[in-house]
């Protein structure tokens, strides 16, 4: 479980986060949604300690994260997997070396075992056979999937994904969403996903938090999204006339049944 308590963050005089408190439960896909520039990435980076908040606290299973020393932080981070918005693959290493890097660093497996593990991860993200390619030789969507493979290779207890399916075609995006959901349920992972993808919200949103103007503007799950009367959330999720019609139809169908 991860808990954020009253997080504030400003860059100079730009107040990005204005007092956010939230709890993220294990075995659930926790989604953070919000407009571009709402502060999703900043919030996620605060949760993992890459950005220090102006004030506020983060707890990992009741351990105050910011009170730990560097060594203790590293111990927690060995249980963390993270996909960056820009993938952040090491460009001087091949795909296989990228995914193997955490194993090389922290596991006692033999090379053959590590290879098996890498191939298993690549298959899970539906990308077999690219082991020897360099990140610059594969597409942005493929890089995202390699990033996910690298994030899950050590079976993390906490998984952070910054826009896992931006830049993917709808079919692959769905696949990635399902994959993240599956491993979350299977291994009881505390998963936190940043997204502004409508489909993800409706498919895998166990626990949705809507950031708006630096505040937590709405909380709920995917079923409640449909019925929300929160104007900001409605205009964010059902942005197009087409989606608004779909919503009306879905609500009508629901009230009939």
């Amino acid at each position, binding site marked *: 479980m991860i808990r954020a308590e009253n997080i504030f963050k400003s860059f100079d005089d730009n107040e990005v986060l204005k007092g956010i408190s939230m709890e993220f439960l294990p075995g659930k896909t926790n989604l953070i949604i919000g407009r571009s520039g709402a502060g999703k990435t900043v919030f996620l*980076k605060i949760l*993992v300690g*890459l950005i220090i908040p102006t004030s506020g606290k983060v707890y990992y299973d009741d351990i105050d994260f910011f009170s730990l020393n*560097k060594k203790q932080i*590293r*111990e*927690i*981070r*060995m249980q*963390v*997997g*993270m996909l*960056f918005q*820009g993938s*952040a693959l*090491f*460009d001087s290493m091949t795909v296989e070396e990228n995914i193997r*890097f*955490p194993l*090389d*660093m*922290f596991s006692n497996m033999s090379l053959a075992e590590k290879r098996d593990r890498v191939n298993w991860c690549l298959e899970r993200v539906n990308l077999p056979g690219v082991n020897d390619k360099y990140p610059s030789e594969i597409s942005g969507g493929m890089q995202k999937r390699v990033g996910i493979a690298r994030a899950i290779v*050590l079976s993390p207890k906490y998984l*952070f994904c910054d826009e896992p399916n931006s830049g993917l075609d709808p079919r692959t995006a769905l696949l990635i969403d399902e994959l993240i959901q599956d491993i979350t349920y299977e291994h009881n992972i505390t998963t936190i996903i940043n997204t502004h993808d409508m489909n993800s919200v409706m498919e895998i949103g166990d626990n949705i938090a809507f950031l708006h103007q630096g505040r937590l503007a709405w909380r709920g799950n995917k079923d409640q999204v449909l019925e929300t009367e929160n104007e900001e959330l409605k205009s964010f999720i059902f942005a197009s006339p087409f989606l608004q019609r779909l919503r009306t139809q879905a609500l009508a169908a629901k009230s009939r049944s």
Partner: protein
Amino acid sequence: MNFNLLYHFGRYIMLLRQAFSRPENWSMYWKETLRQMNDIGIGSIVIVALISVFMGAVAAVQFAYQLDGTLVPRWYIGYIVRDLAIIESAPTITCLVLAGKVGSNMAAELGGMRQKEHIDAMEIMGVNTANYLITPKVVAALVVIPLLVTLSAYIAIGGGYLATVPTGQITAEEYARGLRAFFIEFNVTMMYVKAFVFAFILTTVSCFQGYYVQGGSIELGKASTNAVVFSNILILLADYLLAVLLTS
């Protein structure tokens, strides 16, 4: 340039403290160290050889010019070239040049990794990035740069020979006589002390510049330049201090 010196010095010391801790995984560090040795060593042999030939040659020719019409015997040329190379030019000039080549490269590599979030990605995995990214570079430099300095000294002496013997200014025997005269072993010790100190300065200063880069390509360029400028200033400062300390 920010002259908030104490702040930067404090950050530099703290980075070094983080960097010099016990590695998590020896074999990964060893692999990285070997790669760095190859980059620093093999990658720099040609340029070090080139400048060393000229260093020796110029020293020889100019000294010959100064000797003209004096009572100092001409075979002193070999002696002067040798000691100049060992005491000053091999360690100092080699390291100044390496700061330009190796140092700027290290700053750019680390700065690029910082900007592309590679360092953050490693941190999230639980890697002590200061340790993994900096220590192998420093260790590799401490091994390889003294070797390059040794090479430089030999080649400079060869350069002095090439500039004076084939041109008929002195004979090979005279040059050799100079090389053998007044030899003080301590000068060689001094050369290695300088080589170690300068190698440490140029790698740690350059890594420090790269590791904390922010912003974009302009900042990356600045970090790379600062790596060279600060390394050079500190190397010359250390050169002076060592000269005072070791010869007093």
